[in-house]
C-alpha cells in the first residue's frame, strides 16, 4: 500500500553551532545541529536568517557541504568584503551560539537520481561546496564522475580532504598561482579548458555547474557550444558578490 509523503511547510528553527573552523584564508566551515533534521540530499541548501536587535533581518542561502550520512549540517561560508551576513558568520559566530536555519531545501540542483550517465561537476571558487557532499557518492556511482574546480591558488582550495578521499577525478584549474612545484597551466577556465578537462558531450553526461553568476553563465554558454544539451546542464548561481575564483 502506498504511503503518502508527509507534507508540511518548512519553518525556521534554531540550530546550535557545534564548531566553527577556518577552512581556507577566506572561508570558514560551520557545523550546525538543527533539532529537527530529517536528512538531506547532496546539493541541497539551507537558508540562514540573522535578526538584529531592532528587528532588521537578513537571510542568505548556503549549500550543504556535508554528506547525508554525517550527523547535522556543515556549511562553508566565504567571507565577502561587504557581506553583512558572511562577515557575521565568519567573524562573530562561536561554538555554542544559536542561529536560525530553514531547510533542507531544493530538489533541483542535487546528485542525479538515477545516475544513468557520467556526472560532470564544474565549480568556480566556493561553488565547490555543494559538490563536497556529492563526491562521496562517486565511488558507488558506477559511472565516471569528474570535477573541474576553478580556484585562485592552492590555499583557497575548499574541501581538499574530501576531494582527495573521494573516488572523483578532480582537475583543479588554478587561476592565479599553483601549489609549490606546479608546472601546469595557470589561468581561468575557458572553452579550451572545458573541452580538455570535462566529460565529452557525446557521452551525454549530467552536468552540474556552481559558482558566481558570471562564471556559471560563461561556462554554461561554452558547454552548449561544445554540444551539451541545455536540458542536461543544471546551474546554481550565487550572484556576483564573490571574488572571482
Amino acid at each position, binding site marked *: *500500500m*502506498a*504511503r503518502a509523503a508527509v507534507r508540511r511547510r518548512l519553518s525556521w528553527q534554531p540550530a546550535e553551532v557545534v564548531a566553527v573552523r577556518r577552512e581556507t584564508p577566506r572561508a570558514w566551515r560551520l557545523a550546525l545541529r538543527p533539532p529537527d533534521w530529517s536528512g538531506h540530499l547532496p546539493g541541497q541548501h539551507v537558508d540562514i536568517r540573522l535578526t538584529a536587535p531592532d528587528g532588521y533581518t537578513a537571510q542568505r*542561502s548556503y549549500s550543504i557541504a556535508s554528506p547525508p550520512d554525517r550527523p547535522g549540517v556543515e556549511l562553508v561560508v566565504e567571507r565577502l568584503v561587504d557581506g553583512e551576513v558572511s562577515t557575521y558568520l565568519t567573524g562573530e559566530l562561536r561554538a555554542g551560539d544559536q542561529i536560525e536555519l*530553514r531547510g533542507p531545501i531544493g530538489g*533541483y540542483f542535487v546528485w542525479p537520481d538515477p545516475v544513468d550517465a557520467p556526472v560532470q561537476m564544474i565549480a568556480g571558487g566556493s561553488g565547490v561546496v555543494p559538490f563536497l557532499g556529492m563526491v562521496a557518492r562517486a565511488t558507488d556511482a558506477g559511472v565516471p564522475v569528474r570535477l573541474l574546480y576553478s580556484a585562485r591558488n592552492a590555499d583557497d582550495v575548499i574541501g581538499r580532504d574530501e576531494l582527495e578521499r573521494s573516488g572523483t577525478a578532480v582537475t583543479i584549474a588554478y587561476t592565479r598561482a599553483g601549489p609549490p612545484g606546479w608546472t601546469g597551466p595557470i589561468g581561468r577556465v575557458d572553452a579550451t579548458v572545458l573541452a580538455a578537462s570535462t566529460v565529452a558531450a557525446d557521452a551525454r553526461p549530467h552536468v552540474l555547474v556552481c559558482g*558566481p553568476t558570471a562564471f556559471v553563465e560563461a561556462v554554461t554558454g561554452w558547454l552548449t557550444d561544445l554540444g551539451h544539451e541545455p536540458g542536461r546542464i543544471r*546551474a*546554481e548561481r550565487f550572484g556576483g558578490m564573490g571574488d572571482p575564483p
Partner: protein
Amino acid sequence: MSSPDETVDRRLDGNAAAGPLAELFTVDLSVAMMTCGGCLNRAALGAHHLYPDGPALVVRCPACTAVVLRFAADRSGMRLEMTGTRLLTVAAPPTTAG
C-alpha cells in the same frame, strides 16, 4: 567581480526561491514545472532566473524573460503574484511500498 552588466551579477536560480516559497507551499517547488503564460516554455522552477534583491523575489522565464512569479513576505504577511504563469505542475511524490 567587476562586470559591465550588473543585471547579470544579480541573477540567481529559481532554486534559491524554494526556501521563501516553502513558507507558503507544503511541497518543494524547485522541481515543480512552470509553463510561461507568455511563450509557453516549460521548465522547472530551479531552471528559472531569480532576481532576489527587489521588494519582492522576481522569477523570470528562462526562455523569454517574462515575469512568471513574484513573492514577498514581511511582517505584514505574504503576497504571491503568478499572472505570468499558465500552469504549475507538481509531480506526485514517490510512493513507498509498505
